[in-house]
């Protein structure tokens, strides 16, 4: 049974599409940090200061000093209440998200990128859903993972991308009546019983009338 790391070792680029427990844990940690009582109190103070300044600029502050103090107290009290409510809900939200991630398989995006003449070409990109240890979400995902881990199939994709001109030449020869064959993963063609390299296959097609 293949694992995600087998694909990386073979040469695939494997990224996470979605579903990471680590991502959700980090988000929950951030939410908990934002709900720290000291930070919340500081934020409520900041809101109070900003609001008093705004009211002052608009000429809306009460004339009476006692009323001003009471206004500041009320603003601080309500701001604190709202910030606590918002940050607490945010923590609960991320706790729910973490639980969902823990109960879900990860969805990976697997890319097979081959370099041709200095240019990266993607010859395959598929999504599959499984745990990193290769435990499949269903039979299709497991079959997909096992197929991607097959070395012959991997090499065949590389060959086709790097020898597109030779494959086109082989098809040209076949269309002209030649008997052409090549096994998956092979690095040469068999044309009318002769083994030809990709370069010689191109030359043979070029020599057609």
């Amino acid at each position: 049974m293949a694992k995600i790391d087998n694909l990386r070792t073979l040469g695939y680029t494997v990224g996470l599409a979605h579903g990471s427990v680590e991502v959700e844990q980090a988000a929950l940690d951030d939410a908990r940090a934002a709900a720290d009582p000291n930070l919340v109190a500081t934020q409520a103070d900041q809101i109070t200061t900003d609001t008093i300044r705004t009211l002052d600029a608009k000429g809306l502050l009460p004339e009476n000093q006692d009323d001003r103090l009471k206004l500041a107290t009320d603003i601080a009290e309500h701001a604190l209440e709202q910030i606590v409510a918002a940050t607490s809900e945010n923590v609960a939200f991320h706790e729910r998200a973490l639980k969902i991630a823990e109960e879900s398989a990860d969805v990976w995006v697997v890319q097979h990128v081959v370099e041709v003449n200095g240019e990266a070409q993607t010859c395959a990109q598929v999504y599959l859903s499984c745990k990193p240890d290769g435990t499949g979400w269903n039979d299709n995902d497991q079959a997909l993972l096992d197929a991607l881990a097959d070395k012959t199939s991997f090499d065949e994709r590389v060959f086709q991308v790097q020898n597109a001109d030779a494959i086109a030449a082989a098809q040209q020869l076949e269309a002209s009546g030649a008997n052409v064959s090549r096994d998956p993963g092979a690095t040469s063609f068999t044309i009318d019983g002769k083994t030809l390299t990709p370069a010689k296959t191109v030359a043979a097609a070029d020599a057609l009338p």
Partner: protein
Amino acid sequence: MPVSSLPIAAVSPGNVLTSTMWNAIVKDNLNKLLNQGHRVLTVAQFGALSSPEGTKGTVAPDEVYLEVDATNGIQWHLAYESGETTYKWRFLGGPPMYAEVATNEATASATYAALATAGPSITTPRAGDYIVEQGVWMQATGGVTNAALMSYDIGGTGAVDADAIQAAMSSGGTLANSTGMRKRLKAAIAASTALVSKYKVPGAVSTNFGNRWMTIYPVRIS
């Protein structure tokens, strides 16, 4: 959670903090502090949203960006619509999830089967109605006439001809090529369902399939 839509803070009679002050000034400052604008949610976070029903714009936002592929930066813009029966988040925009296998591989299977490189395949992030589109290049050899089909499994449900791209190719002694693509609306696909392309050649004549691709994007999801 945007504070701007929270209920007006209770203000006791005699208080100098009026509702007008609260609505006009304090909540704006709170929103700036909490920096809650539009939200990019992971799939797990999207699932963790409290039901917005009846509290639209408070417990959950009206619009979200759902990140379905963090590696390729694919986000879907969704809007909540309480009038929808089951899938209450409507798709507003974003690129589709995309999978491809360029490699040319053959099968002579008369029933739907995977090629050496299985797929393309895409896993649905959420339950919903999806537009599924696929395309392929096919090549018949050897002076025969044959049909070739590309369809896709939907989870444990096997591929069917009704979803397939189909071509009938008459090679006349040489190679015959055909390309095709097809788009279908597939309703009520469950979350975390793998859509996996499968291929068949009813005449059991070896046929090549290459440049095969699949995209999906939602119409509405839950």
